[in-house]
């Protein structure tokens, strides 16, 4: 029976990874314009984004999931569990990364902005080629820590029916009756994945450090 449970729950691993990675990528990219807006001198741009980021961070993820999954119907259109999960976790990640990028931006030497201006780089190129790689280097430790949180938070959408590790665990616990074994196995899988994410984050940090320095 142990082998059966082990295999049943393992079927959720690809979904858990897919949800985590997709949400991370959404957060990675959407966080950039949000961070730029949070540093904007214009209050019209800064304050609404500041409010949005704070509200996203103050309200539980499951609450946002329910709102999107049960609450939003545009005509006959409904979000399916997977897209609701990816959108909510992506926006949560983006709000967090926006704060991380913002503080990292503040740590960059002013000379970098002036140098890229004097080289005739436009604002966009300055961001992409000069400042953002440096921001990333400062932000990476916080981002790696958050990616572990994100991996664990990716279990929350199992409640609305995303077929991840957590969902397969509940199913296996019900069908076999060996619930302690099932939930312990699930805990084990999350631990192994956490270790893997930790390794990946360290490898990524090292390779980026080589490039930038």
């Amino acid at each position, binding site marked *: 029976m142990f082998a059966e449970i082990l295999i049943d729950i393992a079927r959720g691993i690809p979904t858990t990874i897919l949800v985590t990675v997709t949400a991370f990528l959404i957060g990675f990219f959407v966080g950039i314009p949000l961070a730029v807006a949070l540093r904007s001198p214009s209050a019209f741009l800064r304050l609404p984004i500041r409010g949005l980021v704070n*509200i996203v961070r103050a309200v539980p993820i499951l609450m946002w999931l329910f709102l999107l999954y049960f609450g939003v119907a545009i005509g006959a259109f409904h979000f399916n569990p997977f897209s609701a999960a990816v959108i909510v976790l992506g926006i949560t990640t983006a709000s967090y990364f926006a704060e991380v990028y913002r503080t990292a931006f503040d740590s960059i030497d002013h000379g970098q902005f002036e140098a890229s201006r004097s080289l005739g780089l436009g604002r966009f190129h300055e961001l992409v080629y000069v400042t953002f790689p440096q921001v990333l280097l400062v932000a990476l430790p916080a981002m790696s820590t958050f990616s572990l949180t994100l991996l664990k938070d990716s279990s929350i959408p199992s409640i609305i029916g995303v077929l991840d590790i957590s969902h397969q665990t*509940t199913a296996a616990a019900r069908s076999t009756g060996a619930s*302690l074994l099932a939930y312990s196995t699930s805990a084990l899988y999350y631990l192994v994945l956490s270790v893997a994410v930790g390794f990946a984050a360290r490898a990524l940090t090292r390779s980026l450090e080589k490039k930038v320095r």
Partner: protein
Amino acid sequence: MDLWIESLPDLFGGLIVSLQLFTVSTIVGLSVGFLLAICAMSGSAIVRAVTLVVVEIGRGIPVLVMLQLVYFGLPSAGIRLDSMPAAWVALATTTACYSSEIIRGGLESVGSDQKEASRALGLGPATTFWHIIVPQGLVVSLAPLAGFSLQMFQATSLAFALSVPELLSRAYDIGSLTFRYLEILSLAGILYAAVGLPMLMGVSYLEKRMNGTRLSRGQNKN
């Protein structure tokens, strides 16, 4: 709007349950976390190793899995808990494991010059620990602990999976009866924000204050 007025007392009752879950699990969790932090700094290598393994396992398990493990899993080992105590145990365990690392970080940040100074003043090890190390270490831990508490307040919503009648469960129940999910969930969201936003502001206030003092001094030292 009528639905909001009608269901506000019910949701408010749910918010009280959420806050109760949060308070109980935070008080128990922080106390155990403090003990774990002391064990993790113990002179005995075995105590240290066992504590670190327990803490790392506790931190690696998602809160939802922890809740389900305690409520659905433990009965097959003969331990049967009602949903509310099960939620207390699960949330307190997660809080203990996370906070122990935060508290340990704070205690270890107190410089060894403090220990030497108190030894020079003739203070015993216990007095040094409780009156010199702990007060300064906890101040350093305050901002990260507050940030973590906000996460744990939000994690009370996961007790939905155990049918604890907290805020989100009640909103969901009303939604499934009336099919007006958007309205009722928005009201629940406002209630969550009413607690979460002041907490978030408190956290950023603490972070700002800490950055101006101890933390930056510590960074300069290294």
